[in-house]
């Protein structure tokens, strides 16, 4: 495997003159393309169908979220983070709230922690379900999409019941929770867990041993653990390459250290391993949810935080394990009500860097598979 740092950027204007080739072709995939998951534009240089190199053009969804943060109070900025990774809004909120809590040196009460974990893990399942559906759709299996959306609906219903929103949930507040869990929350979650377990088997039945699926995913978009670390790739992609790194275990936040779960890792770092890792992660999330919902303690849901937040001068970097990888918030406070600077380390953005490395010498169809397997959300890439 080549060192990712040695890859030269794609020279689009001057094709490779050492060998004149009739087949060389530069095509624009996106920004309007069914398989680039939003408004990603990929410039591909092809030799027939083989990818010689590619370049991602991003920024079509740029809204200046980080800059907006500088003009909002800490509380006011909270809903904005939901709009980054909009399929995993709960995780985004968790990361932001915990970062500000660390800045304020407060900690959410245990009950809030438990409910946070439940919602975040539910969100992880929802995010993985959406990933699975769209990824399978990209590879040509249209049916799993509907299965996963059917089941994701149940999670969204719980979110809706809890906080009134389905997608951009804004479920957490700095210092705890805004809302107490509604009546029957625990029952709903338990029902969901028992409902979704056989459904995950159903997805696997359609795909895991499907010969075409195996051919399309095995050995496709291989990336080694070393390259992943060099590129800063995190999340299931990193774990599928054999690196056992999950921030929930490595730097436990919320109260993940109280829960018993495993970190799945792959061996080959190919698309199939990433698929398997995510499937196992869904089951592990269910395990966490089961434990959490059994052990929700009674108590307050909000820590003591001032109405007007003025964190002390300083900076904090707090990262959590979002469904897509390490989601980090770097917040600099100048002691005022508004952050001096917020820098988000979005997993999608960093993971997208590996696309070129993973796609070299593969076919066009593999680019689609790799974009799918990276599980990017353009809202998060562009911010």
């Amino acid at each position, binding site marked *: 495997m080549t060192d990712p740092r040695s890859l030269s950027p794609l020279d689009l204007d001057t094709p490779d003159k050492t060998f004149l080739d009739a087949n060389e072709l530069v095509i624009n995939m996106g920004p309007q393309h069914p398989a680039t998951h939003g408004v990603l534009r990929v410039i591909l240089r092809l030799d027939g169908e083989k990818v010689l190199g590619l370049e991602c053009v991003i920024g079509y969804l740029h809204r200046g979220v980080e800059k907006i943060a500088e003009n909002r109070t800490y509380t006011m900025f909270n809903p904005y983070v939901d709009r980054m990774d909009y399929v995993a809004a709960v995780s985004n909120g968790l990361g932001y709230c915990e970062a500000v809590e660390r800045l304020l040196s407060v900690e959410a009460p245990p009950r809030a922690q438990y409910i946070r974990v439940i919602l975040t893990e539910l969100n992880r399942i929802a995010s993985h379900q959406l990933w699975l559906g769209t990824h399978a759709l*990209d590879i040509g*299996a*249209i049916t799993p999409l509907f299965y996963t959306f059917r089941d994701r609906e149940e999670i969204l219903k719980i979110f809706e019941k809890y906080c009134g929103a389905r997608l951009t949930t804004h479920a957490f507040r700095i210092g705890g929770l805004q809302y107490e869990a509604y009546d029957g929350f625990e029952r709903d979650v338990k029902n969901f867990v028992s409902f979704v377990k056989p459904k995950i088997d159903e997805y696997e039945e359609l795909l895991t041993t499907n010969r075409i699926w195996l051919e399309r995913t095995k050995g496709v978009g291989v990336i080694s653990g070393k390259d992943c670390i060099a590129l800063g790739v995190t999340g299931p992609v990193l774990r599928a390459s054999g690196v056992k790194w999950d921030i929930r275990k490595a730097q436990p936040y919320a109260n993940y250290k109280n829960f018993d779960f495993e970190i799945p890792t792959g061996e080959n770092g190919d698309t199939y391993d990433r698929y398997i890792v995510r499937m196992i992660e869904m089951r592990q999330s269910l395990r966490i949810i089961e434990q959490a919902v059994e052990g929700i303690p009674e108590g307050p849901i909000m820590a003591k935080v001032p109405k007007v937040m003025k964190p002390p001068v300083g900076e904090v970097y707090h990262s959590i394990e979002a469904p897509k990888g390490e989601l980090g918030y770097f917040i600099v406070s100048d002691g005022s009500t508004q952050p001096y600077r917020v820098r988000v380390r979005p997993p999608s953005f960093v993971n997208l860097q590996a696309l070129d490395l993973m796609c070299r010498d593969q076919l*066009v169809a593999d680019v689609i598979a790799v974009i799918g397997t990276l599980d990017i959300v353009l809202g998060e890439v562009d911010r």
Partner: protein
Amino acid sequence: MHALVQYIESYLSSDKTPGTAGNWFWATVYVLLVFVGLSIAVIAMNWLERKILAHMQVRLGPMRVGPHGLLQPIADALKLLLKEDIIPDGADKVVFWIAPFIVVLAAFTVFVVVPFGPTHAITDMNIGILFMLGVSSLSVLGIVTAGWASNSHYPLIGALRSSAQMVSYEVAMGLAVVSAILMTSLNESSTGTLSMIGIVEAQKAQGEWFLFKFFPLGIIAFAIFAIAMVAETNRAPFDLPEAESELTAGFHTEYSGFRWSLFFLAEYSAMIAVSSIAVTLWLGGWLRPFPNLLHGTTWDLAFSFIPGIAFLLLGAMCFYNTARMPKHPLFKIQTIGLAGFGAVLALIGLVMFLPPVRERVGDIFWFSAKVAGFMYLYIWYRGTFPRYRFDQLMKVGWKVLLPTGLALLICTALWAMRSEVWTQVVVPVGMGFADFVRRLL
């Protein structure tokens, strides 16, 4: 008037196809009938595919236009006809204009030789199967030119993919077809035939469908054909030329409105055409199940009731769903419509019980039923399989299907001549070897 009735009656009792009899009038009528029937089949297929796929994917599919979306295809057709016909700037206008017509012509012309019954074909050609394969392979020209004329990268890649794919799978398909044609020559005069009607007659004479002939060779040939025909028609899991997640829509990305609908029409009629080939070659064409095992007037009578019963069942299904319709004034028209549709189906079913009709529709019914089975398979594939990658597709075509087809052809030939092989090759060689061994000792 009486003369006309007599004329029609004389035709109905004819034992020749209109083309063979040289009767241009009936040939024209047949052409029109096939054209209309095919269009209806494509429309029905459109609705069925959406409904069946929807039910496989835990959703309802079209439900708004007409009861259970029955009028959806018509609404779609209207929409497509009214849409603006966009020819991209920089496209080769003439070729862009012609390409869809090439595809449609190729897809429709093959039905000239499709035998819906012993006399129910437009004509019976000496080269029937060759004609079908040849003309259906012309559609690749339309696809390639469509992709090229669009002057855009995605259609061009789609066109290149489809030309490579269709040419590759034609080879395997041809080998499978040859092995079936070889089976037609197993008679006293050892003369085979390429005629579509002749192939079915041969199956009738030999008393078994070629699917079960030389078990398992017939089934293997059928399997090769069944895989290759999906690739030939660019359907899932071999739908790379129009892979929407990769090439947006492949060769017809730049097409819209009426021209796009021509591609759609061609795709579905090509599906029906290749299924007809499969049915004719391996599934006994128009023959009803067990024509030899369960023969005799009683069985004939029993089987002749099945078409009517099938339509009655469809009608009953409609009535059942009418009863399940929501009792809401808004659904009144839809309920009535569904009931009316059911009544029409039931009426057709009843008409099919009339002796003169009963005796004549059996062929067409069994042929259509077998083709419908293939159509269902197409939908099922689409709901189940992911898409192959291009190199894997080529690997399957050249490294799996082609060698299997070649081996199969040799095996079929050897099996067909097994007595000759035994007496003229195995026995003499064995004797010679035995002699050699004896001398050695």
